[in-house]
């Protein structure tokens, strides 16, 4: 069954809203009601982790049953959120989609060059084996997978959802990959001074828009420590040391909770390598022998 059929069935079964994707080129999340079921799509540009919306503004409490479309990586968030009792399992219907990897839309623009006049529904994009096929304005382009794929997808351990109620499409057979923390090890091999230099250059750019915090499906505290004025752990001034404090605290709060969806790095307008920090914490957490799904208490949250 394809996504729309599955969604129709779910609406018949009493699901009120389905959080999914819409659009072909301008892909956006959508809170689809039953009459908008046709808008739901899934293509390699569906990059967002939609589970983020489940913890926003008490949304889950306002509806009886909601569906949410998840890729393999996003489904891990659901497990973590359930583990933290963020919402009850029977409120949500997880629509799992096995995923061959996703692409940043800017990468396509970069590869094809600026294309301006086209209609969104005439834009087509899909995986064909190890190639990405893009059709726009009657022309078709092909790109090899390893060239265009997002970094996080290259080391993806879970192309198939780890939790789902309904599955759309077929499970993907893929040789078992293992996260090897390549990028982290690269930084680790630098000397202390070199690392410092690398990081201050990055942290200096930060504009503290808090997009990395807001996009993170696991950052859902009702009042964030960063908004607290007494005690004020992170000052508001945007300076190097405050930025370091902010990013250390953010990464620390996600210790052993971060599922590596990479949204923080994607949304950052000044391109900070945030998942590097998250990965480092993940690596050390493994090394230190924290329990597999960390109860927030272990990191002091």
């Amino acid at each position, binding site marked *: 069954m394809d996504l729309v059929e599955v969604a129709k069935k779910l609406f018949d079964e009493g699901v009120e809203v389905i959080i999914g994707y819409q659009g072909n080129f301008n892909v*956006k999340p959508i*809170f689809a009601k039953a009459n908008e079921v046709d808008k739901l799509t899934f293509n390699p540009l569906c990059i967002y982790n939609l589970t983020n919306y489940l913890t926003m*503004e008490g949304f889950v409490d306002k509806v009886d049953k909601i569906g949410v479309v998840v890729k393999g990586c996003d489904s891990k968030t659901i497990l973590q959120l359930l583990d933290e009792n963020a919402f009850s399992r029977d409120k949500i219907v997880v629509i799992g989609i096995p995923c061959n990897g996703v692409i940043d839309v800017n990468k396509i623009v970069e590869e094809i060059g600026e294309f301006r006049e086209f209609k969104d529904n005439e834009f087509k994009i899909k995986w064909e084996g190890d190639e990405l096929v893009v059709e726009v304005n009657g022309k078709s382009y092909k790109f090899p997978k390893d060239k265009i794929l997002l970094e996080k997808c290259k080391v993806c351990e879970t192309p198939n959802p780890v939790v789902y109620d309904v599955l759309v499409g077929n499970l993907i057979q893929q040789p078992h990959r293992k996260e090897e923390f390549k990028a982290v090890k690269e930084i680790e091999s630098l000397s202390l001074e070199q690392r410092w230099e690398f990081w201050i250059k990055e942290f200096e750019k930060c*504009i503290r828009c*808090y997009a990395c915090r807001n996009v993170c499906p696991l950052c859902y505290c009702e009042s964030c420590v960063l908004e607290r004025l007494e005690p004020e752990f992170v000052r508001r*001034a945007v*300076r190097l040391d405050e930025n370091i404090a902010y990013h250390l605290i953010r990464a620390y709060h996600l210790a052993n909770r971060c599922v590596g969806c990479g949204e923080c790095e994607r949304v950052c307008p000044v391109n900070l390598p945030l998942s590097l920090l998250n990965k480092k914490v993940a690596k050390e957490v493994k090394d230190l022998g924290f329990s597999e799904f960390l109860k927030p208490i272990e990191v002091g949250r």
Partner: protein
Amino acid sequence: MKALDKANLDKFVELLSEEFNVYSITDTDFSTDFDNNKALEILKPIKSAKEIVFPQTEPLFKFDLVGKEIVVNEKQNSTNLMLWIKPCDVRGINILKKVFEKDVKDVYFANKLNNTIFVGLACNNPSRNCFCTSVSITPYYKEGMDVFATSVNGAIIFEALTEKGKEVLEKVNSLLRDATKDEVEKAKEIHLQAENKVRRYNFNTSRLTWDSDVWRISEICLSCGICTYLCPTCHCFDIIDENYVYEGERIRIWDSCMYSEYTLQASGHNPRAYRLQRLRNRIMHKFVWFKEMFDEYACTGCGRCVSYCPVNISLIEILGGV
């Protein structure tokens, strides 16, 4: 009209640096540390130019925490020169000027503005998300600039617009030559070409009503501060006291109307607690209420909010210009 051969660009910047703090475009922002030749090619930095006149963190005054006294240090900052600033960013500063000079003059802003010289560059190659022509400016909008430049093949053509601008050109006079007629013609052509490249939308601000369906888009808004912090016209700020051991500072810092904490009152009441209210406030302020106050849109069409929105919320779509 004067012209500068691009071969002399390094010397040109060197000469200007003798007298001014020269800022120019880098990939992320306006900085004194820039790549001369690349700066001409970059369309616009990620951050807008408002940072120069309205910095993200700006100390208002210092205080001594022991004696509880205010210490005002009035240091005169040297003149900044903004090289190759784009029309949309200058337009942003013009709009900020209106806000900060209305009724009560904001001295911090005014000082910075007085100490800044704008050497603008016509925009040759607008991008996918640009829509400046739809909010009544063009890629060769000149208002607010001191010197207006156009990059033509191997040369840059200058036009001094103010006294300040004339002084700047005087300073580098040894490098300049008179522009040829061809070059002047070519510059005009480039301007028109660029204008045609920008996608034009028919915005319909009458659809921005209080309980319009448009605001449903806020469902997917993350209420992060990207759009407001990158916007050249957003000017909300917070005033906060920062304490160190014996002294402190009262600083003014950018704030974003997209944060729920922004309007949260001490009593716990929050007039704009929901993302819908906040998104509506932002858009309506820019396109309805600002128009009421100053008779123009608080938008320069730079397209940053469209390009960098994490969930692809498009201002163009909200305004009905699909």
